[in-house]
């Protein structure tokens, strides 16, 4: 670009390295222009992000009392399925006994629950987003007695932790709290 800028040979403002004041102006204008263009483009890109009505999606309130021990239900929260499982003593025990070294994504069972009998998780496989099977009693539950994702074969244990297969992380635990003994509020 210096070529055309310096066409009028020996013009004023040359320093020893052969750069000119005009080169500097080109760069400065280019930089300001780039910043301006970027800030003009941002609203366009950001318009594709979740809109206010979608972000405002309310929290979900769930009554746990009808769920018998050993049963599980699926509810939706922010358009995503949430698994709520009333775990049996046996399931809790197996989950607690696993040595952390055996885990792909080490996390003790106690950190994944508020009350050990209630396991609440986002029911979306952390691999590529399928919904693992294991909620109903007739579903395959995988090699670790929890959930099995049929899409690419991820096995989750009774704490929803990834044990085998391509998924990198345990099933996510959403933020939730107990409103009273048998009601939780998710979100």
């Amino acid at each position, binding site marked *: 670009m210096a070529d055309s800028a310096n066409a009028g040979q020996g013009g004023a403002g040359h320093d020893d390295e052969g750069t000119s004041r005009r080169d500097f102006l080109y760069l400065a204008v280019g930089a300001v222009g780039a910043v301006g263009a970027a800030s003009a483009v941002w609203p366009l*890109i950001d318009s*594709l*992000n*979740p*809109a206010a009505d*979608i972000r405002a*999606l309310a929290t979900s309130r769930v009554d746990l009392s009808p769920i018998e021990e050993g049963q599980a239900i*699926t509810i*939706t929260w*922010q*358009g*995503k*399925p949430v698994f709520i499982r009333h775990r049996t003593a046996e399931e809790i025990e197996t989950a607690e006994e696993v040595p952390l070294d055996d885990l792909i994504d080490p996390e003790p069972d106690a950190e994944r629950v508020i009350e050990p009998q209630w396991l609440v998780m986002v029911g979306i496989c952390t*691999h*590529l*987003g*399928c*919904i*693992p*099977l294991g909620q109903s009693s007739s579903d395959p539950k995988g090699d670790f007695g929890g959930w099995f*994702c*049929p*899409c*690419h*074969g991820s096995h989750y244990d009774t704490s929803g932790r990834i044990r085998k297969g*391509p*998924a*990198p992380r345990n099933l996510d635990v959403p933020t939730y709290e107990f409103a009273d003994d048998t009601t939780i509020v998710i979100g």
Partner: protein
Amino acid sequence: MSGLKTNNRVIKWFDHRLPVFSYVNEHLVDYPAPRNLNYMWNFGSLAGIALVIMIATGLLLAMQYTPHVDHAFDSVERIMRDVNFGWLIRYIHMNGASFFFIVVYLHMFRGLYYGSYKAPREILWGLGVIILLLMMGTAFMGYVLPWGQMSYWGATVITNLFSAIPLVGDSIVSWLWGGFSVDNPTLNRFFGLHYLLPFVIAAVVFLHLWALHRFGSNNPLGIDAKGPQDKIPFHPYYTVKDMFGLGIFLILFALFIFYAPNYMGHPDNYIEADPLVTPAHIVPEWYFLPFYAMLRAITFDISIPFTGIVLIDAKLGGVLTMFGSILLLFFLPWLDSSPVRSSRFRPLHKQFFWVLVVACLVLGYVGAKPPEQPWVTIGQIATAYYFAHFLIILPLLGRLERPKPLPASISDPVLKSDGSGASQAKPMEKA
């Protein structure tokens, strides 16, 4: 070429002001093409015709279709049952996508076999790879529109690929969705993009042809034309040949449309999307299967040996492998270091080419299978071969292989074809 020949004064008047007639004449009538092109050179024009068919039927579908999660599935069923000839238009569009890919894949393997990507056609080849990527995006988003179970779960799995990107992955995915899962905003933007991208493809096709006509077509011998005796005008020789090929294409196309319209589809896509139930077995459309197999081939983390520090986890590894398999094609002209284009004169390359074809077919087969043994291992071997072919075998062959002697010119082997072993070209195969 002497340019447009016409006595029509209106055409002359117009052409003087806007030379479209001269342009068409230069590129589709007088255009000098090598005289020995075989039927593998039909697929380019077929791809162009397929694009026109897709745009025409797509436009008519768009006039009946409703891009809303509550209505999309029903509006497609209405097209099938109530709209006059709606079933025909939709079946043409659905099977048209498959035929488009068949034609383009054959077109690409033709290029691989005859070395059409070599200098001076590197840009031409690269533009072709861009067209392939755009087609994949278009077909993927089109498949989401009928909002069936496969639409929904295919969209979920594929958009989730981007969550493998470190740090920003999750933000990118929610940006793609416009929400927290695949939902109405996703369907709307996919419809918008599905409408737009074919026109972008048309623009890149234009550049592709521009690059093609700069040096003209390659040919089965892979040698440059030495003069006018090696060329024949596009019209009538290749217009006729292309029309004949189109006839065959349309017969096969019609067989599917009228007798097996759902053969290449998946029955689950006639069940409306349900965000709470994943189908037992998610498979993409057949034309994505080889890539899907490569995605699933990476079942292991890549870590620094003995430290247990994971550099690339299995998920990111699969995604990189899948996209890498296509991006690799951009570098093909420089990976293949042999100066000889056509495999006819490259005895080793010819064999490895067919191994590559088999590897791709195996990948396609594995992609349709559940992720269990022995398919996982077979998929890994085929994936390894695919990459080795381009990254190891081709660069080595250029050095190790001893090509057969090249004929002196395109017309040479034709003229002394009887008995002389100089080439396997079928005499006058073409004109």
